[in-house]
């Protein structure tokens, strides 16, 4: 029998998003392990006066707090806190090896190669801990982060990565983000289901439970108190080449303006029926962008509205995920090679027949850097601070990146092509094809629009596990400070 989910034992950022508009990720080296352990004990003590508390998944009884705090540790961070080599060896090999060592597998090559990552990510062994502060505004974010750093005296700051929501939940490239997330048995019932996609076993996200892969259970690292209810986070700093992306859309639109297939893709005059009406060139730009992603900029899925971002009657917010691909086997509405359809094939026929729902991950991202304004283009680094959470990095995050994002193994008609937005593309070989009736449109020669600039595989321990880690400092820290002993 499956254990019941112990909500107060889970970190709060795993199964739900806080929807805070401001985030700061503190990337840290542990300088003084004993002090770090004391901070972990204080941060799970229930006493906010010592240091901001790590937010649990316990449902909020009243108003949402104005800030939330969560942590993730690398394998070297666990070792630094005193976790034994035998215990670390019980963690999955890809986590212990670290994200940079998996670069070719996950497509971090060329401009995304770890050798070109930002300075703070270069020495992977020094990255021990990431504390994430989610806040309602920038002032609260800064205050909470400052309190953490002031209270601990244990950490050296390698980087403080700030992300801020854009209006309308959009991200760079202009798409609305965070519309679809997995829903889980035991978490989402008839009253709080967000869409009609199949529920996924909680073991896709937390260690110690049944997984979506039939009968398979991932190993819970030892000791059990450390591994159980934990989760992994592939944290990535993804720089987006917005100017190149915009230029590519313009080139595609220019071609479609003169190519007869453009008229079949978007019958002349249709763009005037959109809300708001658009010039034909702008509409074709948006059409290409939608084909690449699988949704229009405003989040309306192509599968539900293939010809217009503003269908009549409008599609309600609660219906934006109620679709599948089984009625669109050739990708006439949503291209098989689009980002969304590759990443989550839903009910489509795919090559690896038992993995339709087995590789689902939780994606939480927030933009960083200034919003791009084509009328006033400012050269600046901009992108996404992305957390990709799952229970098995290799069978979910890495399998997605390797098999589907970059190899296109999911369907023979796209094998050998990469995700047009996220994929490891280079102009000599890149190709994105979609059908328009009996014809095909193919765009070639586009670059890698998203460059990885840093990242780490993090373990997100349960609250019990954090108390266990705290106890490694002096053997008693957790019990002294919280009065709540961990249970192995």
């Amino acid at each position, binding site marked *: 029998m499956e254990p019941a989910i112990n909500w107060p034992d889970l970190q709060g950022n795993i199964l739900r998003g806080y929807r805070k508009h401001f985030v700061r990720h503190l990337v840290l080296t542990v300088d003084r392990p004993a002090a770090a352990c004391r901070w972990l004990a204080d941060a799970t003590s229930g006493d906010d006066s010592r240091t901001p508390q790590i937010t649990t998944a316990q449902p909020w009884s009243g108003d949402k707090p104005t800030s939330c705090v969560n942590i993730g540790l690398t394998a070297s961070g666990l070792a630094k806190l005193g976790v034994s080599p035998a215990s670390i060896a019980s963690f999955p090999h890809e986590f212990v090896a670290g994200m940079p060592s998996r670069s070719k*597998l996950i497509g971090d090559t060329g401009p995304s190669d770890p050798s070109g990552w930002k300075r703070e990510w270069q020495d992977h062994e020094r990255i021990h801990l990431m504390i994430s502060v989610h806040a309602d505004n920038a002032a609260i974010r800064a205050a909470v982060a400052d309190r953490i750093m002031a209270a601990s005296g244990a950490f050296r700051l390698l980087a403080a990565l700030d992300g801020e929501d854009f209006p309308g939940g959009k991200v760079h490239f202009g798409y609305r983000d965070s519309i679809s997330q997995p829903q889980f048995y035991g978490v989402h019932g008839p009253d709080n289901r967000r869409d009609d996609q199949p529920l996924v076993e909680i073991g896709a996200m937390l260690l110690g439970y049944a997984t979506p892969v039939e009968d398979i*259970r991932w190993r819970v690292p030892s000791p059990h108190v450390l591994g159980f209810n934990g989760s992994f986070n592939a944290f990535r700093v993804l720089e987006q080449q917005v100017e190149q992306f915009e230029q590519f859309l313009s080139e595609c639109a220019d071609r479609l303006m003169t190519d007869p297939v453009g008229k079949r893709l978007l019958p002349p005059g249709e763009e005037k029926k959109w809300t708001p009406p658009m010039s034909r060139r702008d509409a074709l730009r948006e059409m290409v962008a939608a084909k690449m992603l699988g949704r229009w900029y405003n989040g309306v899925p192509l599968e539900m509205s293939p010809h217009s971002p503003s269908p009549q009657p409008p599609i309600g917010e609660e219906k934006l995920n109620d679709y599948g691909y089984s009625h669109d086997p050739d990708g006439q509405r949503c291209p098989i090679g689009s980002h969304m359809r590759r990443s989550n094939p839903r009910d489509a026929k795919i090559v*690896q027949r038992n*993995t339709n729902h087995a590789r689902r991950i939780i994606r939480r991202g927030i933009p960083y850097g200034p919003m791009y304004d084509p009328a006033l283009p400012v050269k600046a680094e901009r992108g996404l601070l992305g957390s990709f959470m799952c229970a098995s990095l*290799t069978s979910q995050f890495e399998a997605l990146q390797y098999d589907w994002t970059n190899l296109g193994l999911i369907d023979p008609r796209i094998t*050998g092509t990469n995700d047009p937005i996220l994929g490891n593309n280079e102009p000599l070989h890149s190709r994105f094809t979609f059908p328009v009736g009996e014809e095909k449109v193919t765009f070639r020669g586009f670059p890698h629009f998203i460059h990885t600039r840093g990242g780490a595989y993090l373990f997100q321990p349960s609250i019990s596990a954090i108390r266990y880690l705290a106890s490694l400092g002096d053997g008693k820290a957790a019990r002294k400070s919280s009065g709540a002993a961990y249970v192995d």
Partner: protein
Amino acid sequence: MTIWAKISAFLRRIMETVLVAFWRKVAPVKTPEPEYSTALADNLQMHMNLVMPLADQTAVGRAQAVQAVAANIDELFTGLSNVGTVHFARFDLVGGNLCMYSVFDGDFRAYIRDFISVFGSVFDALLGLVADPPPSPSALHPEEFIDWIHRHDAFQIPRDLTSLFPEERNIKNLSRDLVLLLDANRNVQIGRFSGYPGVSVAQIRHGTGMGW
């Protein structure tokens, strides 16, 4: 063979054994981990050459292995078909080893995970005949199972032998390094050929109208 030739061969074998033991101690080589590549042809039609020593290598034990595979052959083949990424798979007895050779598309670990989920229970039964098997059932110990398969997968020697030892600075040592590599890896794949490189099994099925 004359008596002198036999003595000479015997002495040579002794010297080789001593020399390899000496080399192993003073100049060990590490078996390289498989390198990932972004080239399409390097990610399709991957090979797995699983060599599993039988616990009982007598004719009786080998006959049991044949019977165990034969009894489950339909389930194994259905499972392999359902994985969706397998071009070919063969079950052989070579000496005292039960071998499974297969050609598949994509990541090795993803392949083995799919393998567990579609016919892990059948494979668990076969592993009951193998010496030093992984923990059973594989579904509850997927990481250990995958690591075990990886250890029993014959090392694949690349076309360019020198790429095996990127740290080696003296070309004269390459022969020694190769001897030590083979000392550590009894079973190796020496070369492979494909008549249609860079094509997935689903593309072949799709292209030939077999359905994928």
